[in-house]
């Protein structure tokens, strides 16, 4: 399977600051979530893939095309939805999307047809003859999505697509992204601060920290690989309970004052925990089986990815 993105020691310097530090890897997922704290280099990476920044060292490829020497070919294949407001305020929605389609190479008549279809698809059909300046924030986000997909790109780059959206609008955006992903014709890169967006839309996740790639994983495989653990909420003295559980062979981590994460060895049953709790006059108020969520994966990455159960 051809890699969508390949990074070969990609280094980006903006002024005196090295924003991306020798990123390496081949990413072939159909939908990749790009995560990282502010200033981690997510947007810089997206901009570099679009040819907005020149690498200080190394290079990258999108669908096998070099980001320095073949950027025009890459831009033929890519649709980009920027994070900030980007449009011409005194243009109508239909004119704006049509112009963007024509700039991507569609003939004028087909561009007009696609612009109509795309605006209906994103739910702006009724508002397509209104000026973009009069659109609400949610409508502007949809207009940005429309211009990014109007030419049917093979790679769709979405930078914070749910920024500033209310819950119904966010849900609509997420379902559109999922729908585009489901066609199998377009690969996605979604950069977001919202882990839930990435969890819902992406199969793979790439986590950047201080310009370095710290995690690249398949979310589903990661979830399966992670050990199932118990999350307990107790009332009583936590410490003796944890000590006794550890003597039974459990791996424990105290989380807050009364919360304990616990991995049970095969020979220990939940019944044993209740017996233990009763002997110490401790109440178990809540007990759930859990697996690591994306949030856990993200937090581990931020801590240095120690690979063991952390509180």
């Amino acid at each position, binding site marked *: 399977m051809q890699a969508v993105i390949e990074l070969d020691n990609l280094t980006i310097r903006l002024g005196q600051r090295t924003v991306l530090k020798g990123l390496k890897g081949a990413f072939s997922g159909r939908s990749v979530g790009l995560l990282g704290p502010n200033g981690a280099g997510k947007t810089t990476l997206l901009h570099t893939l679009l040819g907005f920044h020149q690498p200080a060292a190394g290079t990258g490829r999108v669908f096998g095309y070099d980001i320095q020497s073949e950027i025009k070919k890459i831009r033929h294949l890519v649709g980009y939805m920027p994070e900030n407001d*980007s*449009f011409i305020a005194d243009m109508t929605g239909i004119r704006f999307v049509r*112009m963007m389609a*024509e700039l991507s190479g569609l003939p004028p008549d087909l561009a007009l047809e696609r612009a109509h279809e795309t605006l209906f698809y994103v739910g702006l059909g009724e508002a397509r003859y209104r000026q973009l300046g009069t659109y609400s924030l949610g409508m502007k986000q949809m207009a940005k999505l429309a211009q990014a997909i*109007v030419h049917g790109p093979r790679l769709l780059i979405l930078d914070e697509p749910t920024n500033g959206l209310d819950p119904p609008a966010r849900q609509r955006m997420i379902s559109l992204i999922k729908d585009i992903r489901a*066609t199998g014709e377009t690969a996605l890169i979604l950069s977001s601060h919202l882990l839930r967006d990435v969890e819902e839309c992406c199969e793979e996740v790439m986590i950047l920290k201080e310009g370095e790639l710290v995690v690249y994983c398949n979310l589903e495989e990661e979830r399966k690989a992670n050990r199932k653990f118990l999350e307990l909420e107790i009332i009583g003295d936590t410490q003796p309970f944890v000590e006794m559980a550890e003597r039974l062979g459990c791996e424990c981590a105290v989380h807050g004052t009364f919360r304990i994460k616990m991995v049970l060895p095969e020979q220990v049953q939940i019944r044993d925990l209740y017996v233990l709790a009763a002997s110490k006059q401790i109440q178990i108020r809540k007990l759930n089986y859990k697996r690591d969520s994306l949030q856990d994966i993200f937090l581990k990455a931020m801590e240095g990815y120690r690979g063991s159960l952390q509180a």
Partner: protein
Amino acid sequence: MAVYKHNYQAYTGPLTTSSLRFLVLTRYAYQRIFSSRIFLALFLICFLPPLAAAVFIYFQHNARILQTLQIPIEELVPIDAAFFRVFLYIQSFLGFLLATLVGPGLVSPDLTNNALPLYLSRPLTKRDYALGKISVLLILLSLITWIPLSLLFIFEAKMSGLGWMWKNIRLEFAILAGSWLWMLVISLLAVALSAWVRWKPIAGALIFGVFIVGAGFGTLINTVLFTQWGTLFNIGALMEIAWKWFLQGEQAPGQLPLWAVFFGLLGFCAVCLMLLAKKLKAYEVVR
């Protein structure tokens, strides 16, 4: 796909030639420009002088009309280099007004609305973008400078015969070279200022300002330092010297050498291009 089928579908149809795609920007700019009545009125006024010139040429070659109007032929202005120079001046001035009206609105709305990332994430380079915007003015100015003047030349050649045409063929080259030099100067200045000054009236005033302040500064240098080199700052004067040389092949004594005139004008164009290139970025990098 019909509009009621709200499914996402990839595009698999034909694509336009990528080398001419910058003209999409030009076409969309025209749709906006021609919706202005002020522009439309000025644009139509620009065709009146060439129309009047065409009527004049026709009269000059029609003895019956001259007889009816009782105008002696020897009192009419001859159709020569001086005649075309006057019309080149008039059309260039009208072109300057058009550029002042249209130019400031070409790039500034894109920068104000942060639209450059959208343009530059498509198969469109910064050069294509700049070319698309400059072409708006180049095509518009062509329509009122070298095209009508060349038509006048052809009309006069038709009325006077091929002999006149071969004798004055220099005029046609002069019209083309003089018009294109002026168009380049004014278009690059207008687009560069549009990229730097986001408020349209100020950008329009600055186009006038570059000519007026430049002329004043140049005159000051010439007067204080007893030299002619201050003229390099006076774009209007440089253009006048160039036009005169193009049309009549002569230069007034005491003026700047021709190489300096062309160096000054091309240097001015280069500065405008540099200013434009500095602003045309998908994102400003905060250093």
